[in-house]
């Protein structure tokens, strides 16, 4: 395996070609925040919270650290006023759909980046779903069951994670999805069922 040398926040790091910036940074002890990343799962690149600034051939741009492969001579900056502002805005945008009442990593990142989860929410009136559509549960379910009991429906702002009614039988109740959820949306107990949309359909409520 070829070894490449890159610079993350002025730290020189040697890593195998093909590893991502995020993995390389993690090994070197540099923290990059993520919401839709889970070790062992294929990178998804949807939450964009791991955005970092890279410099390559004299040109800089913003990329998602979870997907961008380490390259020889790459310079990466993981924190800067510009990146912090992008992350803050992304978390605030995530708040539009999720609502203020989130737990887990999303709540922690909102505090760290001084993100006001109601900044844009106040403008758009919609029922909070507590979900940011990171897709970890969906991808984790495929790994766990070799099939997927849950998945996405809808496009754009109508996108939701649901339990596929015809596949409900494949759910092994392994609770993996619950454990990996970064907003605390999925619960096996409590007043709300974990995937309200389809549960509503099944129960005839909608």
């Amino acid at each position, binding site marked *: 395996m070829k070894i490449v040398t890159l610079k993350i926040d002025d730290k020189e790091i040697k890593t195998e070609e093909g590893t991502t910036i995020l993995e390389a940074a993690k090994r070197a002890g540099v923290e990059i925040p993520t919401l839709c990343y889970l070790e062992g799962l294929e*990178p998804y*690149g*949807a*939450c*964009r*919270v791991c*955005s970092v600034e890279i410099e390559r051939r004299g040109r800089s741009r*913003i*990329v*998602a650290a979870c*997907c*961008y*492969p380490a390259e020889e001579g790459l310079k990466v900056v993981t924190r800067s006023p510009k990146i912090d*502002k*992008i992350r803050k*805005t*992304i978390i605030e*945008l*995530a708040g*539009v*759909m999720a609502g203020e009442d989130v737990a887990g990593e999303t709540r922690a990142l909102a505090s760290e980046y001084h993100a006001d989860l109601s900044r*844009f929410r106040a*403008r*758009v009136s919609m029922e909070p779903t507590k979900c*940011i*559509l990171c*897709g970890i549960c969906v991808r984790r379910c495929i790994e766990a069951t070799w099939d997927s009991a849950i998945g*996405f429906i*809808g*496009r*754009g*702002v*109508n*996108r939701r994670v649901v339990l596929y009614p015809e596949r409900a039988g494949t759910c092994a109740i392994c609770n993996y999805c619950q454990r990996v959820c970064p907003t605390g949306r999925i619960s096996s107990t409590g007043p709300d069922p974990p995937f309200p949309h389809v549960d509503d359909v099944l129960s005839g409520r909608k």
Partner: protein
Amino acid sequence: METVKCISSPEDLEKLRQEIIAKREPSKPSVSVCVSTGCVALGAWRVMEAFKAELDKQGLKDEVEIKETGCLGFCEQGPRVTVYPQEICYLKVKPEDVPEIVSKTILEKQIVERLLYTDRATGGTAQKLEDIPFYKYQLRLLLEDNAKIDPKNIEDYIALGGYCALAKSLFEMTPERVIEEIKKANLRGRGGGGFPTGLKWETTRNALGEPKYVIVNCDQGDPGAFMDRSLMEGNPHSVLEGLIIGGYAIGAHEGFVYVREEYPIAVESISTAIRQAEEYGLLGENIMGSGFNFRVKVHRGAGAFVSGESSALMTAIEGKVGEPRPKYVHTAVKGIWDKPSCLNNDKTWATVPLIILRGGQWFRRIGTEGSSGTMIFSLVGKVNNTGLVEVPMGITLRDLIYKIGGGIRGGKRFKAVQTGGPSGGLIPEEYLDLPVDFDELTKVGSMMGSGGMVVMDEDICMVDTARYFVDFLLEESCGKCIPCREGLRVLSKILNDVCEGKGKDEDVQTTEDIAETMREASLCALGQTAANPVLTSLKYFRDEWEQHIRDKRCSARVCKALINYYIDPEKCQACLFCLRECPVGAVQGGKDQVHWVDQEKCVKCGTCYEVCNFDAVKKLSGEPIPPHPPKGMKPVRKGK
């Protein structure tokens, strides 16, 4: 039907070409009718039937040939009929015009004046296509042959030298040499990205992994743009020939044509072309006896705008939901099923045979230093002539809009032009002399995109325009990444609020924050460019935003919530037109009494404004509405 010959060498192809030409009589009268989507919608099939019936009736069935051909881009003037050998071009032809065309033009060689092109401004007419101002300033490399080819007949394409470039590539050039020629031509991707095509081909050729794929992108979904469709409908073999040459150069033996299901004629056209090319030995095993094998499949897109994005398109071909995926490793290296896949727009592929035959140097001399060749624009909006125009890169916006487009309709003032589809920017008057190419458009905050070009006049509100495009993209975003999905949701809400007079002072700042994040951090090009119309609207027309937010005024008088209709008592002739037409009974007054609008009842539908013949109905915005005239006031009669 004669038996189809299987071409098994370049000599066979040339022999067949000579035979086809020998069979044809150039002096024989013939009629060609455009049967592309635009003309068909305007009744081209009925015109076609009328020709068949009339020629039958007059016993001219064997003397006159009728031909179905493709689109020439001047769709608003359709259906188009061209009569040969004089090459007289008739526009807006109706079935009832057909007997006259047959007896006058075909038999007596006379011209039916009223069916000729008439210039709106000067009243002058033009007999031939190239004399019409709309065509005079164009350089039609790709669309030229649409007039001469029946897309369902491969022999028409072969007669014009079709598949000669393929023969040349397979028998006289190595794959590397083909790529070299494309590089020399400096051909850039016509889908809008403008990525150097030669470099992309080389990347896929050198990438590890087998098999390799080549793909045609014909998934154009922009409102108002239809050049990809016209090319695919009118000259499918040019795209196919380019694709086979690309397959040979890249080392791919399998190709896909991704075409929208909503383009049924294009789907049929390319499917027929593939079948015929296979029958003639120009596609399939051992093409023309060269030993090169290549197969093509048509994949029909299910209608998502985002599926035109390369990674989403490839995901769709794999049979999954067409959503973009991160492509820091290019699709040219890791595409369909993670195999090297080279995707180009259909216009890019159709340009390839021209470059192979005439050389990269020839192509490079057309256009500008950075962007060679021609580009097809879909010129629409408030211009006198609308349609598809093919021009050399580097033409100025002014020439496009005034020389080809014939200027702004109704003598109104130009306000802005939006280039590049729904995520292109709004370009103001000060940049009218901008040479149009990939790099110059990007510099002013817009893009080449698919070549959409929407011209707007003084009656268009720039905030409302930004709102329209954001709402379009909101519908089309796949919803995978947060900046695009949520950014568009919030932008749409803000823009709708501003247009409804509910804008807040901080909205400009909020809009900029969101737009910036979307541009920097979105997953794919849809999200990265989605804010362009908003950002350029803010940059070049900030005063309009401020009017909407602070003064609750829409200076173009478009935003419904910010306007009122008012009848000028000095001008009203009490004709009762508006009073009768008003659907909610808001117009007051009566016979011989000046009319006025009851603002409480008015729903601002604009009917009174449209029906008034005396220019008495006004739209007011941001100004007080004068009190209505005293009851029973008599109209001031004109000329008395």
